[in-house]
């Protein structure tokens, strides 16, 4: 066995971006016919390492061996020639091309397209049969779902005769059923002797499918272990560098009066697409209502309407009084006055101004507050800064410097700044979208604790997340959205990922 050369061997790879050391002396061996997981927090250097392997970046130091041979991978072309295929987190597809055109792009046989397309069509059919990689060759990319788009990316790699397949966070955009399908494909590929590198931050995926796993932390490879010899708490500890509480501790909910009542909410966007189709639900004091669903099924629009920056028809009652959905009072300012705080899904676009200082960002939406005014003309910046310093201390924002620009904080610390701004207003209702997207495990723990603490103070919380685990562990009640509708409500103790996954895919439960 020992005389088999590893499919991939990296020796002493280092890479710096300016003063930031993204990869520090990384060595790794991946044996052929295995699935190797690479796990680590955001910014741990996983993607940089894979980009070096795919020729996107040049390593400052180190060597790459493919199948025992030293390779100098200078660009994507060299990577493809070495038998490496990559499925990026953000797909690299031409949206107005057909599936077939995307597959042959860059791998055409000759100057004319016709023979290339014909060969690709034949090969696609045999690949589809072999690996469950079924796609419609003539469909245009922008018309097909993300699941099929991902299969096209895998087919692109296989069409180029890749023996090594790298997948970067492949399940982020998939429903649980689609993710299962992907894993079946990966197992088929492994059976055929392909080598697969799976980059993810989801511990469960690592446990489910990989043979070996490497953990990265702050640019270093902290461990490589056999998956069968490890467990999630151990991996989390390796990732973060300390013990982490993976599940949320919370007392049973003390449900109070009705805070928010949404009835028959409809939204049609600028393109005329019906985004929300008659949504109705309630949220009570002391309760977390979790909205599950695959991204793009109307959750964003729901938050935008409740937050006051999208028009809608229907009715929303807040503390028993109707809210203006279309008129002059339909804006974020009026919503805040009614006791609605909002932590938006995309904190970098909607939650913060990235080039502004932290102290300026903590004032947004509340800059009319009495305590921030020096006199009729000027704001009291010193008060704002003091206020920010206190918030930063309470929310453990690092570094605790109010004069730093928002963009200089890590994802988790940015989220804490937004959270501090919104929670500290003592709102009746907190809207929170994707609270832990792009947030490190350590910070996730803290943010979850803050949300639960707010609930225990008797506040109502509407949580929107595409992470099913997060929904299941935080929510007191779960509603699933699909195609602008609520497919059903479940209690977390009476449901599981499988049932929710079916609802997320538009199937009304396993009972029928």
């Amino acid at each position, binding site marked *: 066995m020992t005389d088999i050369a590893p499919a991939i061997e990296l020796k002493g790879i280092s890479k710096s971006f300016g003063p930031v050391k993204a990869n520090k002396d990384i060595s790794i061996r991946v044996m052929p016919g295995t699935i190797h997981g690479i796990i680590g927090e955001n910014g741990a250097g996983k993607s940089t390492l894979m980009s070096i392997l795919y020729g996107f970046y040049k390593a400052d130091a180190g060597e790459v061996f493919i199948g025992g041979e030293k390779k100098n991978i200078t*660009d994507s072309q060299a990577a493809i020639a070495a038998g490496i295929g990559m499925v990026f987190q953000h797909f690299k597809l031409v949206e107005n091309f057909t599936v077939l055109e995307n597959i042959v792009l860059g791998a055409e046989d000759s100057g004319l*397209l016709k023979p290339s397309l014909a060969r690709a069509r034949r090969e696609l059919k045999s690949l589809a049969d072999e690996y469950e990689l079924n796609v419609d060759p003539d469909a245009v990319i922008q018309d097909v779902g993300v699941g099929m788009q991902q299969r096209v990316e895998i087919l692109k790699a296989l069409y180029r005769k890749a023996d090594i397949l790298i997948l970067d966070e492949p399940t982020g955009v998939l429903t649980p059923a689609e993710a299962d399908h992907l894993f079946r494909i990966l197992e088929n590929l492994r059976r055929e002797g392909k080598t697969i590198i799976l980059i993810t931050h989801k511990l469960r995926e690592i446990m489910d499918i990989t043979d070996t796993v490497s953990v990265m932390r702050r640019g270093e490879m902290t461990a490589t272990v056999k998956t069968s010899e490890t467990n999630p708490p151990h991996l989390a500890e390796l990732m973060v560098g300390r013990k982490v509480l993976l599940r949320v501790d919370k007392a049973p909910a003390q449900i109070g009066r009705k805070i928010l009542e949404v009835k028959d909410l409809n939204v049609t966007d600028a393109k005329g697409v019906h985004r929300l189709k008659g949504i109705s639900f309630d949220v009570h004091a002391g309760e977390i209502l979790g909205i599950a669903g695959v991204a793009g099924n109307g959750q964003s629009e729901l938050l935008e309407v409740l937050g006051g920056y999208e028009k809608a028809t229907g009715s929303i009652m807040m503390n028993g009084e109707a809210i203006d959905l279309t008129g002059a009072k339909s804006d974020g300012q009026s919503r805040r006055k009614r006791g609605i705080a909002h932590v938006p899904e995309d904190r970098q676009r909607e939650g913060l101004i990235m080039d502004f200082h932290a102290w300026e960002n903590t004032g947004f939406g509340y800059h009319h507050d009495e305590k921030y005014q020096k006199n009729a003309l000027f704001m009291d910046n010193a008060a704002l800064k003091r206020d920010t310093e206190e918030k930063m201390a309470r929310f453990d924002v690092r570094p605790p410097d109010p004069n730093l620009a928002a963009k200089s904080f890590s994802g988790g610390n940015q989220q804490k700044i937004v959270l501090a701004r919104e929670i500290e207003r003592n709102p009746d209702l907190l809207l929170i979208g994707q609270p832990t997207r792009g947030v490190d495990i350590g910070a996730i723990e803290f943010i979850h604790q803050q949300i639960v603490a707010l609930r225990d103070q008797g506040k109502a919380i509407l949580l929107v997340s595409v992470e099913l685990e997060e929904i299941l562990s935080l929510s007191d009640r779960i509603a699933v959205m699909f195609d602008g509708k609520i497919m059903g409500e479940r209690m977390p103790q009476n449901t599981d990922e499988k049932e929710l996954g079916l609802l997320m895919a538009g199937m009304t439960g396993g009972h029928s």
Partner: protein
Amino acid sequence: MDLATLLQMLDATLRLATPLLLACLAGLYSERAGIFDIGLEGKMLAAAFLSAAIASVTGNVWLGLLAGIGASMALSLIHGLASITFRGNQLISGVAINFLAAGLTVVVAQSWFRQGGRTPQLSGDARFDSITLPFAETLRDVPVLGTIYYELISGHTILVYVALLLVPVTWWVLYRTRFGLRLRAVGENPAAVDTAGVSVVGLRFAAVAICGVLCGIAGAYLATALQAGFTKDMSAGRGYIALAALIFAKWRPWYALFSCLLFGFLQAMALRSDVVADVIGFALNGQLLDVLPFILVVVLTGFVGKATGPKAGGQAYVKER
């Protein structure tokens, strides 16, 4: 209006549409590859000047054409360097090229020929002659069809036929060849091209170079075929009209032909205000007819406001982390 007048109008339409069509196709290659080119105007102007100058000095229009293409290519190269290699702003680079060409052509023309910023009148071999297509003379007396063939189809310079032929050629290149597939892809999503192992920079420079060649032909046509020599600002906004035609055509070759013919027809109307007066029954202000194409540009681009061009258009390609 009789058939003869109508044919004259259409004949003028064809002649005036030719530089628009060449420039429009030039822009099509460039923009399909994701490089906005507002400098079509400047490139045409530079090509018009240098082609007329060289044709006048050598007495050979073909050398003039080559020189015109050279001038346009040189400006294309500048645009490519600025917007592809150095990832600068494509609009600013294009505007700079227009200013550069507008000023430089007149200054150089003045110091070279001392005729007030124009080149000497071209004649004989220093100009493109109209060519009579086979059988045109024999068929000329066949009623209607023969007349159309003789008056409208035959009797243009070779460049008119080149421009018309370039429409199906461009379509074929774009939709039937490997180069075309990659060109369209790089204008939509350069990252897809890059990760497929094809050079984004190489493709974009190729597109910009083709744009230079076609703009060069367009400019040479203005000075050595449509007119007989270079005069100050002779491109007269045609580069911008070509851009509008391109948007109106939604970046597609056959549509480009029709939108350029439409704009050519409007320009022909301005030339033959007597015919227009005859048809509508009263005389229109000549200046109104002159600005008609530009008014249409505003109206049409307003109309097709939702025409979305190549998605990566105008953006330099930077590999993401």
